[in-house]
């Protein structure tokens, strides 16, 4: 028998957030944390959380599981339970809307800042802009980000300055377009990132790498952006 401790907060009814304990029998199965949440919702329909694809693709169900950010749908109990206890909290650092649902406006505002779309002033070819296989390979490890926010909400620099520091997720995406040979707005993109906060507030502690459910490496991408900025400044 497990004890599942869940963060509860309904701003319309509760004065302050609290942890609610549920006894839970997994019947010996190595369920995913999302399965547990679904079963708890049957017991208590007022429990609120986001979910959609339930297979680690949509990025909706990012939560803090026993102290580590991750996707509930692809985190098995065997990885998350410690001393017969599972603790589920919302992703840290962003305002809580209700229970496990956070307000991600600030996260998306930073994503919008890096202009996450191809910019190329030249006339588009008849079919599509082609790339060599080598150039395409440069985007591997960058384009796979699903914007679940597990990395940015694990980053102290993002907690402290979410309005100024782009955050690991946004910067991984920024480098995805800086590294794309079909994009011609490199100078414009670097100009937008050259202030002391947007990129340089990364202190390289690599929390983002540790928690990314897709196994991506935002710190490495940030290092590449920093090198581009410094080379341009010299």
């Amino acid at each position, binding site marked *: 028998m497990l004890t599942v401790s869940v963060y509860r907060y309904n701003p319309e009814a509760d004065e302050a957030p609290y942890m609610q304990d549920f006894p839970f029998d997994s019947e010996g199965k190595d369920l995913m944390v999302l399965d547990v949440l679904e079963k708890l919702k049957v017991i208590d329909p007022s429990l609120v959380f986001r979910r959609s694809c339930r297979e680690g693709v949509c990025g909706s169900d990012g939560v803090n599981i026993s102290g580590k950010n991750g996707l509930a749908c692809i985190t098995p109990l065997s990885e998350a339970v410690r001393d017969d206890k599972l603790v589920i909290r919302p992703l840290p650092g962003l305002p809580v809307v209700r229970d496990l649902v956070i307000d991600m406006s600030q996260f998306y505002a930073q994503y919008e800042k890096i202009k996450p779309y191809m910019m190329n002033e030249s006339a588009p070819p008849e079919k599509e802009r082609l790339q060599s296989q080598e150039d395409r390979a440069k985007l591997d490890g960058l384009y796979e980000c699903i914007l679940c926010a597990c990395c940015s909400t694990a980053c102290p620099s993002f907690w402290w300055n979410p309005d100024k520091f782009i955050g690991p997720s946004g910067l991984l995406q920024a480098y995805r377009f800086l590294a794309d040979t079909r994009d011609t707005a490199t100078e414009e993109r670097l100009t937008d*990132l050259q202030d002391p906060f947007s990129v340089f*507030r990364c202190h390289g502690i690599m929390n983002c790498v540790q928690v990314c459910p897709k196994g991506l490496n935002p710190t490495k991408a940030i290092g590449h952006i920093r090198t581009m900025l*410094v080379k341009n400044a010299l």
Partner: protein
Amino acid sequence: MIGSPKSLSDSGSFLWIAQRVSGLLVFFYFLFILGILVSVQDVTYEYWKSIFNNRLVQVFSLLAIVSLITHAWIGIQCVISDYITERLIGPKAILIRRTLSNFFGLLLMFYLFWSLLILWNL
């Protein structure tokens, strides 16, 4: 060439380079002093004086002091702007940040002039 920042303090690249270059200079100065302490058996006041009367050592010391001040200034600014934010403690953060920034600025200037005074009076 990317668009120019309004001032050097608005350029993350400049601050990043300045912090690393100043850090390296301080490190080499530390090695220099350590080298003297390890290699010379009796380090007397007269010996220190003769070392610091050398023009090259004076220039190196001056560079090391300016580097240390620069390094500390950038680091302190970084810590202040990381921890003392409006988001964390409300609008009073602006005043606290400016006060601390000015205090440390004056303190570092004091250290700079004090160090120069010591160097020149040798």
